[in-house]
Structures are given as structure tokens and as C-alpha cells.
């Protein structure tokens, strides 16, 4: 119940006046770039060296907007007398951003960490066909990818670091054992 | 006043007199169009012109107060009310086929008679009285108020009572019609008890 008639009206006026006194939240975008958090879904960058042309991303893409062409190459055996290895070589990796719905499934499914979110977002085109970006462009965007945010204090270790640490510990233990045996 | 009249002749009119005459002609023309046009809303708008012309005439007669009251009441309120009513009837754009009346000759006769009577009264009352434009305004608010509330207070009050009676009458009539209608619908709708709040919903 209002303490006196019109107190609600006064409260409304106070709210707007207080908002006016505060700093406005508008970002002056073209003059000032927005500060976007890492992993902002701006654009997808490709780190080619990690790609094995496994086609998982293209298959999982709900929009079928990833185009991958490749051919096989035989690699001479690593050691003399060994078997020749065949290797997939990437010919084309393109993402049609007019189809992409930024679900990020391709990035999730990539088993070799070849795809990354980049906060870059200024790639509008005047023609829809020019929104299909090829590997060189995707590679350029790779360099705009931000480092992932720091983990929370007390969080579990990232898997790859944990695995690396375990191997390192094992190795250290293996090196330490013979030393013990010697002494 | 007779002295002043002697200085004025009908054959050598002053600028104000010419303006008065021209505005009068324009007002008369607008009034004629108001009653003859077949377009309803145009008639109301021409009425604005006619009433505005009258206000200008009052101004030229130095009756400033009356002029502004004329604009305030007639142009600002009465015509707006008129337009409001016309809009409620969906007055069409263009000619209304039925914007004519069989009584037009009788109406003309009444109008001519009324105009004749008014002109005769005015001519008889003022004859060759001229307003002295150079002296203090004869129609200022103070002068109008003093004459209204000293010399003419009884007619003024009688008019007030008349208007009040008309107002009350209008309210009574509209309330009565509404009550009848509400009663009729509640009877046909076969609702034994119609609470005031339910009446709105029933209709």
C-alpha cells in the first residue's frame, strides 16, 4: 500500500532521474571496438596444421556449411624397410557463413583442436556468395583467437595437461628407478 | 456620438471600414458555403471560417474580449464537438447524397426573417454610432465585464440558469435512455438479478 497518493509516480520519476545521472551503457562501436570475451562466437578460425581431414566437422554440421576437399598422398616410410604411409592432404576447407548458425558443433567435435572460436565479427559482405570463406581467410582468423579464460580456482586440471603431467611423472619415475637400482 | 458621426461619411470610408466590409463579405460567403455544400465535414470547416471571420469583425469593433471568447468557445469547442460527432457518423470524403433537406425553402425563409430582424434591431439600436478608435478601447475586458455585471447582470444570470437547465436536462435525458436500455436488455436476457457490474458484461 502506498504511503501517500502519488508516491508511485514519484518513485518512477526518481528511477528515470537516477538513470540519467548514471553513465550510459552505450558502446560507441565503430569508434571504439567492443571488448569481447574469449570464445565469443564471432567467427570460426581454422588451424590447418591440426586438421587431419577426418570430416567429422563437415558431417556433424547441422547446416552442411563446411566444405572440405582432400586427396591422399603416400609418404615414404619413416624408417628404411618400413611400410609406406598414406596421409590426407587438405585441398579446400571453406565455411559458408551465410548458412552457418554459429552452433559451434564443429568446434566441439573436432578431435584434433583444429577449429576455434574467434571474437572477430566484422566480415559482412555485400554479396551473399562472398560469405563463403576459404582456408586462407579462416587461417587469418586463427590469429585473432584469444587465449581461453583462466580456469576457476580449484577446478580440475585440463585433460591434456593432466595427461602430459602423468606421462612426465611416469617418465621421471622410470628414470629414477634405474638410478635407485644402480645405487 | 453625433459629432463623431458628422465626421464620417459612407462615401469616403477609412481603411478599417473597408477591412470590416471585406471581412464581412468573406464571413457571409463562408456562411453561405457552410449551408450549401454537400460535403459534411467541409461544412463544419467552412463554419470555422465563418466564426473566425466574426471574431475578426469583433476585433475590428475593438471588442477584443468578445473576439477571443468567440474563438475559444465556438472554434475551439463547438466546432470540435461538431467534428467529433461527424467523425462518429463516418462522414464520407466527398459528397453526401443525402446532405439535403426538403425543408430548405422553409429554412431559407426562417433564416432571412431572422437575419432581417437582427439587422433591423442593430440598425435601429445604433444607427449612426461610430466607435472612436483613437480613445480607450470600448470593448476591453474591463469595460465588457463592468457593463455585463452592472447593467446586464439579470439577463446574464437568466442565461446562466437557462444553460444550467439545458445541461441538467441533457444529463437526465441521456441517463434515462441508458437506464431504459439496460432494463430492456436485462429483461430479454432473462437474468433475474442484474448487478451493476454484471450489466456491462451482459451487454
Amino acid at each position: 500500500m502506498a504511503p501517500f497518493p502519488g508516491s508511485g509516480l514519484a518513485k518512477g520519476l526518481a528511477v528515470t532521474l537516477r538513470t540519467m545521472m548514471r553513465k550510459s551503457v552505450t558502446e560507441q562501436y565503430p569508434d571504439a571496438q567492443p571488448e569481447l570475451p574469449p570464445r565469443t562466437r564471432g567467427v570460426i578460425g581454422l588451424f590447418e596444421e591440426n586438421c587431419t581431414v577426418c570430416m567429422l566437422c563437415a558431417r556433424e554440421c547441422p547446416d552442411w556449411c563446411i566444405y572440405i576437399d582432400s586427396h591422399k598422398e603416400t609418404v615414404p616410410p619413416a624408417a628404411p624397410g618400413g611400410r609406406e604411409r598414406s596421409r590426407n592432404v587438405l585441398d579446400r576447407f571453406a565455411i559458408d557463413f551465410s548458412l552457418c548458425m554459429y552452433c559451434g558443433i564443429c568446434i566441439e567435435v573436432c578431435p584434433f583442436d583444429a577449429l576455434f572460436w574467434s571474437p572477430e565479427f566484422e566480415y559482412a559482405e555485400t554479396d551473399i556468395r562472398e560469405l563463403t570463406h576459404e582456408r586462407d581467410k579462416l587461417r587469418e582468423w586463427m590469429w585473432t583467437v584469444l587465449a581461453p579464460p583462466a580456469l576457476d580456482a580449484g577446478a580440475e586440471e585440463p585433460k591434456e595437461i593432466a595427461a602430459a603431467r602423468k606421462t612426465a611423472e611416469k617418465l621421471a619415475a622410470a628414470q629414477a628407478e634405474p638410478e635407485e637400482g644402480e645405487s | 456620438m453625433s459629432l463623431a458621426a458628422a465626421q464620417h461619411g459612407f462615401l469616403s470610408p477609412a481603411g478599417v471600414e473597408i477591412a470590416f466590409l471585406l471581412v464581412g463579405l468573406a464571413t457571409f460567403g463562408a456562411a453561405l458555403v457552410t449551408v450549401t455544400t454537400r460535403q459534411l465535414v467541409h461544412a463544419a470547416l467552412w463554419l470555422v471560417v465563418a466564426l473566425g471571420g466574426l471574431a475578426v469583425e469583433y476585433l475590428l469593433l475593438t471588442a477584443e474580449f468578445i473576439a477571443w471568447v468567440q474563438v475559444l468557445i465556438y472554434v475551439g469547442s463547438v466546432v470540435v464537438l461538431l467534428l467529433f460527432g461527424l467523425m462518429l457518423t463516418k462522414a464520407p470524403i466527398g459528397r453526401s447524397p443525402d446532405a439535403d433537406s426538403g425543408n430548405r425553402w422553409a429554412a431559407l425563409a426562417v433564416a432571412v426573417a431572422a437575419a432581417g430582424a437582427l439587422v433591423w434591431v442593430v440598425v435601429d439600436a445604433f444607427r449612426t454610432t461610430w466607435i472612436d478608435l483613437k480613445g480607450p478601447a470600448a470593448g476591453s475586458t474591463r469595460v465588457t465585464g463592468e457593463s455585463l455585471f452592472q447593467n446586464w447582470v439579470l439577463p446574464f444570470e437568466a442565461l446562466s440558469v437557462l444553460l444550467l437547465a439545458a445541461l441538467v436536462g441533457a444529463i437526465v435525458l441521456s441517463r434515462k435512455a441508458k437506464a431504459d436500455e439496460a432494463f430492456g436488455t436485462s429483461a430479454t436476457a432473462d437474468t433475474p438479478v442484474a448487478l451493476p457490474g454484471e450489466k456491462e458484461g451482459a451487454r
Partner: protein
Amino acid sequence: MNDALDVALRLLVVFVVFLTFPLIVGQTEHKVMAHMQGRLGPMYAGGFHGWAQLIADGVKFAQKEDVVPAGADRRVFQLAPAVALLPYLLVLLAIPIGPSEGAVGQVLDAGIFFVLAVMGVGVLGSLMAGWASANKFSLLGGLRTAAQLLAYELPMLLAAASVAMAAGTVSLPGILHAFHWWWLPWQIVGAIVFFVAGLAELQRPPFDMPVADSEIIFGAYTEYTGLRFALFLLAEYAGIIVLCGLTTVLFLGGWHGPWGADGLGWLWTLLKTALLAFVVIWLRVTYPRLREDQLQKLSWTLLVPLSLAQIALTGIVKVVIS
């Protein structure tokens, strides 16, 4: 010759005020409204904080095609913006800003009546526009405009009448000459009634039911484009100036102030007018639009009784002190 020059100069000054002040109010509205909503508002036009935004808007309006709908009543449709705008120009003539003879466009004997009468005529423009557009939204807007005018004209008049009673004159400079500071608390109810009714007559939010854009597009102005539309907008902002100026003159003592009454009186008038214009914008940002029935209810059940009570109070005090 000197007289003619004097008149011409006064007309010119009033005309310039008429053209610039609404733009200033409009720009202030842009910025104040933006900041009250946590935004910045226009920032680019003209360079410094978008000061030239409304000039840019004007240029844009002038470039647009002037469309008259096929089914519209051509002449009434084209005449309506002028009918809506001109009255405010005339009203500005009569508002005194300073105590001296030269600080008012034209001294009128029945100033209050002139001002209120002519302001009422402005609404006729909206009605003409609403009817002549041959558009049901416009017609609805026109109807609402008329209903609103009829409802709010009465309390506005009564509130103004209260001041006229207090001052014993209906001339605007006369009222100001009779003003004392204690009129402020004495006439405060009348002032609020006058201001609110004036807002409603201008169809400013929260009383903008006649142009409620979410229901009837833009009411009577739906079919207008280009310059004619701009004229309607200009009329609205000129109306704000006029309303704030009138409230200042009638209720806030115009050029009277705590200090600097002579010489700087016009500054007081402008300051108070500007403050009221800010309040107009503030109210617009703060309150949601009143529904049509709430609108009528507010006028007939609150403002009219309040203004009548104010008149009674004025009469009693007047009799007691005389």
C-alpha cells in the same frame, strides 16, 4: 516608419524563436530521453554530441516525397499541418518574457483568452488531418484527439481562470505585474492542473493516446510524409514551448526571481520555461501511456474538481485579503 520597423523586428524575433526553440527542445528530448534510458542518443550529426541531429532530420524530411493518399480529401489534407502549426506561432506573440514593454511580441488586453483560444484552434489541424486522410487509424486518432481536447480544455480554462481571478486581470503582463511569491503555494493546484491538462492537449506522453503508435500507427498523422509531417512534429514541440511558457507566466511568476528582477528578468522566464520543458520530457520517459478511459476519467473526476476547488480557494483568499 519606426513603428513598422518595430513591428517587423518583433515579428522576426518571434519567428526566429518559433523556429529555433522547438528544435532545442527536440534535441534536449533526444539527449535527455536517451540518458534516462541509459543510452547516449544522437552522437554524430554536427560533430559534438550530435547537436545538429534535428537539422539533419529536417533536411531528410525536406527530401522526402510529399504523398497525398488517393482517397484523401486533398485540400483539407494539405491544409491541416498549417492549421496545426500557425496557432502556436500566434500564441508565442503574446507571451511576455520580461517586465519591459519591449519584452513581449504584442500586449493583448485579453491575453489568457487569446492564448487558450488560439491553442484550441491548433487541435483543429489534427482533426482535419484525421478525417481527410481516408484512413481508419487516422480517423480513430482524430476522434481521440477531439475527445481529449473536449475533456481537457475545461480544467485548463478553469485553472487559468483561477490565476486571472487572483490577479484581477486577464492580460498576461498584467498577471505578472500582480504576482507575489506566495502565489506559488496558493495556486499550486491550479498550476498542476493547468500543466497536466496542457500536456494532454498537446498529446504528449503519457497522454498520447491519439497518436498511440502501437495501436493506431500515428493517429491522425499516419498518412503524412515529408515536410507536412515535419510541420506536425514542429507543432508538437512549439506546443511544448508555448505550454511551458504559459505555465511559467501564469503560475511560476515569469520574470520574477529571488534576485536580478530588473534587467535579467527574461533570463528567469527562459530558465523556468526550460525547466518545465525538461519536466515534460521527464514525464514522457517515466510514465506509460494512459488508456483512453483512464484519460477521460483523470480529466473529469480529478482535474475538473481540483480546478473548481482551486477557484473556490482563490475566491476565498481573494475576499479575505481585500
